[in-house]
Structures are given as C-alpha cells and as structure tokens.
C-alpha cells in the first residue's frame, strides 16, 4: 500500500512552457488531421459512388484498409518503411504524424458522411425536384444540409478521437504532450504527478469540443 506517498505537484509549473508547446502541437496536428481528413474523406465518399469501377474499387480498398489499420502501424510504417524505399519518402516526425493522422481519419469521415446520406429518406429530394429544383439546387438546398445535420455529431466524435490519438505519435518522437511528459518523468522521477497533470490537460482540451458537439446537436439535429 502506498498510503504514505507524498504528492507534490509544484515542480510541474516549471515545465509549463514545454507542456504548453505540447498542447499547441497537439492542437496543430489535430487541426491538420481534421481539415485533411475531412477533405480526403469527402472525396472518398464521392469516389465510392463513382461510375468508374476502378476509382470505386480503389476507394473501397483504401477505406477498408484505413478502418482496419491502427494508427500505430501507419506511423511506424510511414516513418521507417517508406524511408527504406526511397530517400524522397523520408519525412520529419511532424510530417509523418500529420500524414498518418489524415490517412487514419479520412475513412471514418467517409463512412460517417456516407451513412448520413444513406439514411436520408429519398422523399426530401423528391419533394425538392417536384417543385422544379435542379439536381445541384436539390443537393445544395435540401440533401446536403439535412445530411450534414445527421453527420455532424458523428464527425465531431471522430475529431475528438483524433485529438486523443495524437498522443500515439509520441512513439516517433513528436514532442506532443505524452512525449514531453515522458521527458519530464525521466528527469523528475514523479510519474504519478505527471500522468495526473496529463489527464487534467487532456480533459481541459477535449471538454470544449464535447460541449460544442452537445450544443450543435441540440441546435441543429433535426428529428423526423
């Protein structure tokens, strides 16, 4: 029993600049992943319904692989295996992390968007075409806004997961929160305090997003 362990958080303050850097780096990587992953995911969702068989097949193959591969595997593979193939494919750890996070998020975005459209009753679009809207007007004014409302809560959940997954990038030495914390631990030998502080930092980072998701859900989620 460690009842007489003496907690001491004081030393952590001196590392706050480094930890803050870690927080900013995490947010930066998350932002890149969210933008890149959403663009690529939307593109995949479009390719999946393409009339060209090869494009459709490639999209499905990537989606299935992307859903199956853990981020850890992607990171290691891009970081170590690609550089073995060609020196042109050797990137810094930040770039590797960004690429891996984008590739990891895109299939989930694609699947969320697809299900948002797939569960939308055809009748809404039919009603739009019945008043004389063109296909583009129907998409812009009816199908897209309705699908987006169904998609948004799921998308935000994947974005939050991505933010937390940035911690895994510590294994390729990206100086984000976990990596910085490990460095602090090896200096101070106070892992309990450092891990507790890490928990608080993550909580404070994720909480605004969860609240935003709650708000959006209340504001926009349309019942049928």
């Amino acid at each position, binding site marked *: 029993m460690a009842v007489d362990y003496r907690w001491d958080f004081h030393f952590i303050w001196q590392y706050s600049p480094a930890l803050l850097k870690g927080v900013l780096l995490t947010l930066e990587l998350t932002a890149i992943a969210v933008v890149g992953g959403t663009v690529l995911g939307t593109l995949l969702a479009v390719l999946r319904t393409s009339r060209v068989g090869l494009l459709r097949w490639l999209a499905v193959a990537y989606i299935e692989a992307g859903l199956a591969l853990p981020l850890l595997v992607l990171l290691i593979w891009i970081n170590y295996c690609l550089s073995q193939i060609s020196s042109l494919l050797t990137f810094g750890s930040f770039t590797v992390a960004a690429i891996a996070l984008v590739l990891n998020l895109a299939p989930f975005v694609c699947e969320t968007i697809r299900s948002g459209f797939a569960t939308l009753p055809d009748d809404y679009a039919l*009603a739009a075409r019945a008043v*004389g809207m063109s296909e583009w007007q129907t998409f812009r004014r009816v199908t897209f806004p309705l699908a987006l409302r169904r998609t948004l809560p799921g998308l935000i959940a994947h974005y939050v997961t991505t933010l937390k997954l940035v911690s895994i990038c510590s294994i390729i030495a990206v100086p984000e929160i976990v990596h910085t914390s490990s460095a602090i631990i090896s200096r101070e030998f106070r892992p309990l305090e450092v891990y507790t502080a890490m928990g608080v930092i993550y909580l404070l980072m994720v909480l605004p997003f969860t609240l935003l998701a709650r708000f959006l859900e209340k504001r926009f989620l349309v019942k049928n």
Partner: protein
Amino acid sequence: MDTVLECRGLKKWYGTVKAVDGVSLTATRGQVVAIMGKSGSGKSSLLRNLALLEEPDGGQIFLNGQEVFPDSTPSWQEQRRRRQSVRACFGFVFQRFTLWPHRTVLGNVTEGLRVVKRLPKQDAQHLALAVLHKVKVEHLCHAWPERLSGGETQRVAIARALAMAPDLLCLDEITSALDPVQTAGVLALLRELSQVEHKTMILVTHHLEFAREVADHLIFIDQGRILEEGKPSQILAHPQTEEFRTFKNAVLASS
C-alpha cells in the same frame, strides 16, 4: 375542352416488374381525376412518371397540348432544363416525409419561390403567407415541421405545392397516414380547392365517398393497367371486374 395533361400508353418497368403498363389518361382544366388500386398496383409510379420525377420507359405525355415526353431535344442540358420546368408545372404532395425538416413552415413554402422562381424574399413571403392563409395554417408560419400534426403537415405541403401556381396538383395518398378527424379536414380542403378554385387534380385515394362526391373521373388500376374507369358514381355502383369488386368491398369493410 382545355386539356391540361394527357398521357398515352405510358410505361414504366422496374426490371421485369411492369409498374405502369400502357396507361392512357386525360385531365381537363378544373377536373379531378381519382386513382384507386391496391398497394403495389402502380398508382404512385404512375403519378411520379406523369410528373417526370422518374424517366418513363415508353408512351407519350402532353402538358397543355405540348409533347413533354419523349423529348426530342438533342442537347441533354436543354432536356434537363425543360424537364425541370415540366416538374414545376406539377404540384406534388406525398404521403410521408413531405416537409423539409430544416426549414420552418414559411421556409418550406418560400423555398421553391426563391430558388426556382427567383422571387425576392419579401415577395416570396408575402405570397407564401397568402397561400398558408388559404389552407388555414397561417398561424403556424414560424413553426418547425416536427411540431406539426399530420393534418397540419399535409396542409403546409399542399400550400407549398399551390404557391408554385402549378397547372395541376398530384396528390399521392396524402391522407393515408392521418387520423379520421385530420383526414376529414384535409379532404374538405381538397373539396374546396376543387369546387371553389377549380384546381385540376390527380389524386390517389381510398375514400369512396370523397371520390364519388368530388372526382369527375375515377380510374381503377391493377398491375399497372387500367381495369376500369368512368364516372365515379357509375363505376362504383356497378363494378365490372372481380378485382374492382373485391377492392371496393375491402375498402368498405375497413371503413
């Protein structure tokens, strides 16, 4: 007489299923055409193909004397544009999921006016309120569709269709999801639109009494074909085919 809509030998197949199998019908201005038939007989397909919401597989459609299907225009962009304007001539009301849930009642009615007819916001709202007043739901103009009862929903859907000033209304079983009181209200509204405003309508309904009283022409469809048609009071009194007799008795037994 002034023919609004005419179709000859209209066909629509889904794979090997002949949903619409050579149907011909005419609606003159101010006329109400009622369509009956059991579910899966091709009533909805017929309506959707008439309004070119789907691509018919054969036959001809004339709107105000002009052939709108088949369309011989060589350019597909032109074809698409013309098809859009044809659809706008039909006011369509569906059975379910009719209103767009992300727009208020007023928004649902102004949407087509703004996007398709490109009216300024003020004019669109003005017109929409007038139509909503006509169908007696003006007081709900700022409500969201999810808050409406089934009867109110269908009234708004009718208003949305009417606002576009269509040549004819296509109503696809619009009362079948409503309770008896709301059904009576919506049917009374349709009667008024027909008798006071002389709107041309093609409607799918299972209300024999309503059809007898309001419709000028009744069509009974089975397996995509017209089995019987004529003046409602006449053909309802003397069904010629076993299918129509069975159908009529089933409707009577359930009401």
